[in-house]
């Protein structure tokens, strides 16, 4: 009897420790030098949404990371910054970015705090010449100044980007989402949480689809990413002939001090160099970070350049062994895990259905059919 009580006690403690995270997610890692507080999070949310931190006064972080679109700018292929200037990459979601080991598609930033520094200055994003205008605003704006004083204990004139990015990162660490139908089925033991087809799709995910090797799941949580970089034949397939010259020019410019963040977002061809642009390793040529699959059904289009419109197209690309059109030439630097899969049409359908069970409740799309039919104006619109 005593043993049973000990075990029960242990279980109670374990579940209490887990209470912070939604089903399917681990505890959010919080850096020691940036503890979460409610006030800091609120300050971060305000900064995240402030359009004044752009050269035109029209673009905020939230412009490309829209809460209603699972913190992406779906359905845009690549993001739009000031004056409708476009970058080269599909906006990655902020949701669960707290778990990423590196930030950006090519991992060029080590943390949420560091990541937040760059879009302000990128000429195709928020276009500021320096961080000074941001500091000017938060120092002059009394309510900002009060908040910074209260959260960080700094006087207005002493506010720096360190505090600004810490607040933004603290806010972003609250944007986590699990508890999807898949989580309830797999981790929660709810037998009917997903359809039979999705269950079959999960088997493809683990087996013939070879998905789980990179979109990893653990025993008690699933981030669906290995945090690694892989050349999967997106983007670089279209610039194969140009790679030697591009790589050479890029490396020379980088060696002479060129800003990598600016270079990869302003030129599509350079963007396709991927992780190579960051770590200079030949084996990183054309490689991009494995993105999470959580909420993937509501964040189309896909891949670093938003070049695939549907999940079906993505699966077809992998099924073809790293080319979007069957029979196209594969790129020489293709990752060794990518090979033709010979999936059946049924398996592909099942796999897509499985991915649709990864949407967290708050991002489930409103059923437009129901809304339309309930509206007397529906037929006229």
């Amino acid at each position, binding site marked *: 009897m005593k043993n049973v009580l000990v075990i029960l006690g242990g279980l109670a403690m374990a579940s209490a420790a887990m209470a912070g995270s939604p089903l399917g997610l681990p505890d959010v890692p919080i850096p020691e030098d940036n503890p979460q507080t409610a006030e800091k999070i609120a300050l971060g949310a305000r900064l995240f949404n402030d359009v004044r931190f752009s050269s035109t006064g029209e673009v905020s972080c939230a412009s490309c990371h829209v809460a209603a679109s699972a913190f992406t700018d779906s359905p845009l292929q690549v993001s739009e910054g000031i004056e409708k200037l476009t970058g080269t990459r599909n906006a990655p979601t902020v949701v669960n970015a707290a778990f990423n080991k590196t930030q950006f598609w090519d991992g060029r930033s080590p943390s949420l705090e560091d990541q937040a520094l760059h879009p302000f200055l990128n000429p195709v994003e928020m276009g500021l010449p320096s961080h000074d205008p941001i500091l000017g605003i938060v120092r002059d704006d009394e309510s900002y100044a009060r908040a910074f004083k209260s959260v960080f204990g700094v006087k207005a004139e002493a506010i720096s980007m360190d505090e600004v990015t810490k607040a933004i990162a603290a806010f972003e660490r609250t944007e986590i989402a699990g508890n999807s139908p898949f989580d309830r089925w797999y981790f929660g033991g709810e037998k009917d949480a997903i359809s039979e087809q999705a269950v079959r799709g999960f088997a493809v995910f683990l087996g*013939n689809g*070879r998905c789980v*090797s990179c979109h990893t799941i653990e025993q008690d949580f699933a981030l669906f990413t290995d945090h690694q970089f892989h050349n999967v034949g997106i983007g670089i397939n279209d610039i194969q002939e140009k*790679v*030697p010259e591009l*790589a*050479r020019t890029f*490396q*020379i410019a*980088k*060696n002479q001090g060129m800003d990598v963040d600016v270079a990869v977002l302003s030129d599509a061809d350079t963007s396709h160099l991927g992780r190579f642009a960051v770590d*200079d*390793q*030949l*084996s990183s*040529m054309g490689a991009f970070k494995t993105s999470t699959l959580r909420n993937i059904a509501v964040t189309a289009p896909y891949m670093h350049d938003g070049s695939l419109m549907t999940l079906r197209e993505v699966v077809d690309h992998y099924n073809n*062994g790293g080319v979007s059109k069957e029979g196209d030439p*594969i790129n*020489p*630097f*293709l*990752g*060794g*895990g990518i*090979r*033709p*899969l*010979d999936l059946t049409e049924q398996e592909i359908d099942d796999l897509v259905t499985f991915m649709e069970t990864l949407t967290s409740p708050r991002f489930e799309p409103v059923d437009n059919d129901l809304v339309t039919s309930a509206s007397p104006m529906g037929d006229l619109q």
Partner: protein
Amino acid sequence: MKKMNTLSGRRDFLKATSSGLIAGMLPVSLVRLVGADEHGTDFTFAYISDSHIQHIKDSKFVRNWDQGLIRAVAETNLLEPKPDFVVFGGDLAQLGTKPELDHGAEILAGLNYKMHAVLGEHDYYLDLGEYWSELYGKHYYSWDHKGVHFITLNSILTYDEWTYDRWESPERRMNEMAGLDNPNGSPFMVGKKQLKWLKKDLSKVAKDTPVVVFSHSPLQKIYKGWNFWTEEADDVQAMLKPFDKVNVIYGHVHQIQYNQIDNIAFTSVMSTAWPWPYPESYAQAESHLPIMTVPMNRADPFNERDATGWQFMNMHTGRVDLEFNLYNNTNRTVSFNEEKGHPEDTMFDDPANRIPAQQHF
């Protein structure tokens, strides 16, 4: 002797030059200190080996082996500064057929550099190297480059009786030599004729000239069952002994090996096709891997390129440093340690730096 592999050396060098050198793509070992080599024999070359291009039928070849070679060629072409030449270390083909050699040669033709070829047993035992010779010329030869004497040997010959009299067909002969732990196999040899040629070739070389020998099989006796072996290894070593600095680079073993015998530094190179021994692999589709007698779980069976790669070589002060470009793995450097007098892995010789083997149950 100045240390070659230090970061400070690299920085000093980059500071000291205003040329458009591309630091990022340089393996650190490549960057030479100005004036480090009084003989002017510093240069680099690349080494690609054991691609085992395999014909299935019609225009179909094994995709995995194709990709390994294609990737090595593409990456070698990106090197800055450019290597002086590339060596292909043998076993371009799997079963020595014309389609295989042609297909492999077509991929190698993408190299932007002069190439020297070594003959492997998989290239040889179908037609005894006849078609290979049409593509790449002599089976053994030597040349000089920037003060270094290079020798390419054909080390995969064997007894005449085995080669000429034992098998009912060339295909059978090829298959028997391709087998592992095969009781019908036969040990690799250089042969009397070539040994005589080698002796004559070396007689013209000054003893303080650095000598680099390329062979397909190791010119040392490691394991006979897999032909990690050359029958007259002792004779060849004796001929090389009088020279101050000798380097032997060999393929065939599909893994990293290094060793020192007297003055001779031996280093193997990787295969672009598969590691040896290799793991039980991917069961979803036919793998085309030769049947393995000793299964191994070292490489990641998911990633076809794991534990394969190619080499970048830095020739300085008469010794060859090898930079192993390993896909899906930490790159490794095997460099000659002048103080210890033998090659060593600059990182993993120290037990504290070793990565423990994975346990699979």
